[in-house]
């Protein structure tokens, strides 16, 4: 049923306009890259700060700021991603790199949901140093987002 919903995206006016326009797709693709840049740029910075590889700046200030920027970037990436997908849903649903990318994004979002509910997240907001579970989660986050970028780029090469 979900597949049918995804496939029906191809029949929308927006998808049709994107297929025919000379500038629509490159513009949406550019906005998608902007979303990724905001998302991954801020996540990598925050993860490296939590892992203490970056030592400057206080976590209590950086954590809320960088996670908000990441959330904004993620919204932009999802929105533009759906548009890019709508151009040929059947093609992407049969692309193993795309499916891997979706699975990895689900794991990364699960990690976000978990970490924001951990006591150690509230602790760093209150000015405490990062503890081991938080560092572990930062390492997982770093690995997942870099893998997501790689899987995303691989879509064109399978």
């Amino acid at each position, binding site marked *: 049923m979900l597949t049918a919903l995804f496939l029906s995206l191809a029949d929308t006016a927006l998808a049709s306009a994107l297929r*025919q326009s000379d500038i629509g797709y490159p513009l949406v693709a550019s906005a998608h890259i902007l979303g990724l840049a905001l998302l991954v740029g801020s996540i990598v910075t925050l993860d490296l700060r939590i892992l203490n590889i970056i030592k400057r700046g206080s976590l209590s200030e950086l954590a809320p700021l960088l996670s908000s920027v990441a959330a904004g970037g993620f919204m932009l990436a999802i929105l533009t991603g759906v548009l890019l997908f709508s151009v040929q849903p059947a093609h992407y649903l049969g692309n193993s790199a795309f499916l891997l990318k979706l699975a990895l994004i689900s794991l990364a979002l699960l990690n976000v949901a978990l970490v924001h509910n951990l006591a150690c997240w509230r602790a760093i907001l209150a000015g405490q140093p990062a503890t081991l579970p938080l560092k572990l989660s930062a390492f997982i986050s770093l690995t997942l987002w870099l893998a997501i970028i790689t899987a995303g780029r691989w879509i064109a090469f399978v």
Partner: protein
Amino acid sequence: MRSKNTAITVISALAALLLWLPEAAAHHGWNWTEDKQTEMTGTITEVFIGPPHPRLMIETDTGRWQVDLGNPRQTKSAGFVEGEAKTGDQVLIRGHRSANKAEHIIKAVRATINNKQYTFYPELLRED
């Protein structure tokens, strides 16, 4: 500080070297294809005209092949737009096959459908 600068210099030099490595295979460029231009006929099973890359899927004597057309702009200037071809049409492709025999992809220089020619790369067309 000095060792940090040295590290940055070494990394930049390696990155610069990477620029001169041969281009990787994708459907961009031609160095993933055979040098020789060949022809192939088949029946169209799928037509996709749109970004990021227009293509046909065709059924031939040697199985199912993916035909990469020009980029969206080149495909449009070749006159190949929505409605020019449909599933079931016979097509004659002139182009370059993937150098990897296991990969059933041909990059079209010209496609002939219903006696109409669509030339995606006029400057690369070789008549023999």
